């Protein structure tokens, strides 16, 4: 799995509905090779986490960020 910048993704809970991809206001999430991939540029708006119906994506707390 690709390294995570700002969001933690749970591949077991995720059903690849791409809601997170479509609600992200800066368009940095995508579904590639059956994985939710995060590009740099997250503004930590929490939209992906709020909309995910499967509790499969979470924005990291400031402390956990690998920067």
């Amino acid at each position, binding site marked *: 799995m690709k390294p995570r910048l700002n969001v933690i993704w749970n591949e077991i809970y995720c059903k690849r*509905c791409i809601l997170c991809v*479509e609600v992200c206001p800066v368009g940095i999430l995508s579904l590639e090779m059956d994985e939710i991939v995060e590009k740099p540029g997250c503004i930590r708006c929490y939209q992906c*986490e709020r909309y995910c119906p499967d*509790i499969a994506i979470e924005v990291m707390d400031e402390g956990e960020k690998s920067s």
Partner: protein
Amino acid sequence: MIDRSYKELLKLKRFPHTWCPGCGIGAVLKNVAISLRELGWNDRNTTVVSGIGCSGRMAGYMNLDAVHTPHGRALTAAEAIKTVRPDLNVVVLSGDGDLGAIGGNHLLHTSRRNPNITVFCNDNEIYGLTGGQAGPTTPKGTKTITSPRGEIFQPLRLGRILTTQAPYFYARTTVYHLNHFKACIREALFWKGFSFVDIISDCIELNGRRLGFKTAHQMFKWFDERFHIVEGVRDHLKDDELGIAKREVEAEVKAEMEVEKEPKVLIEGLKLFTLEELKHFDGTDGKPIYIGYKGKVYDISTSPLFQGEKRMRCHIAGKDLTRDIEIAPHGEDLVYHFPMVGKLKVKAEAEK
């Protein structure tokens, strides 16, 4: 950082849940759990009831006492539970077909009897579980598996039926309008009496795709085109409005009830507490738990909600809760059950 403690209310061991990718039911489950958590409703004081259908699976994913009833009978079980255990919060989680079609008769009569229960209806305008047949809330003209040329009948307008006689609480929202959705959930949980939240939701697999939508988000955009939010409280909602329609009992009747509810002051010359002094009685080290309410101090130490470990973490202890209790469900009645132990010096008085 955001609060994720709502997950304690969900049976994460059973995740991933059964619903299709992008199905709105997951959003309903999650947001109801968030609100219950915020209000402190938990396995000690809350029961959830579901009927049958994809939506009817919701109660089974909650870490609360849950009842999975036969098709259409969620309200019968919920009302019975509330009747024998009025101290419990009762929440119904079910679908539009379950509540509006086979359970329609119960919806009429339970709402008429106005028990203090809250219903969250995942309204996907279809019978999802059985394959996408037209149901009672399917809009006229919708193509479904049983209406390939478009549904020919008018839908049942739950919003009109449930707002014919006061008291009533009916809210319509969607899984897309998240802030509005959460506000409706909270308001409904606070309402004393029968409250119904009609949550327009997506059945992407067995309804959305037939209508030409490829993803749940495309359906969300369609909800946004079909509905708009109206501010403030209404008597009724038009068919394309999202908002809250509520009315209390007639004014005179209510005034009478208020008078009866005031507790009688039994002890003359009650001890006077300042807010500082009140803080001391927070339940730690065997001290009692006192709270302030409308200028009086009550001893709530005996409440089953704050025993054992919970006693130490009782976040309301030693505080003046006048404002919080006024907005909480059954707040007042709860306080008046406990012994009054003193009067509270309000700020202005204390400064003198």
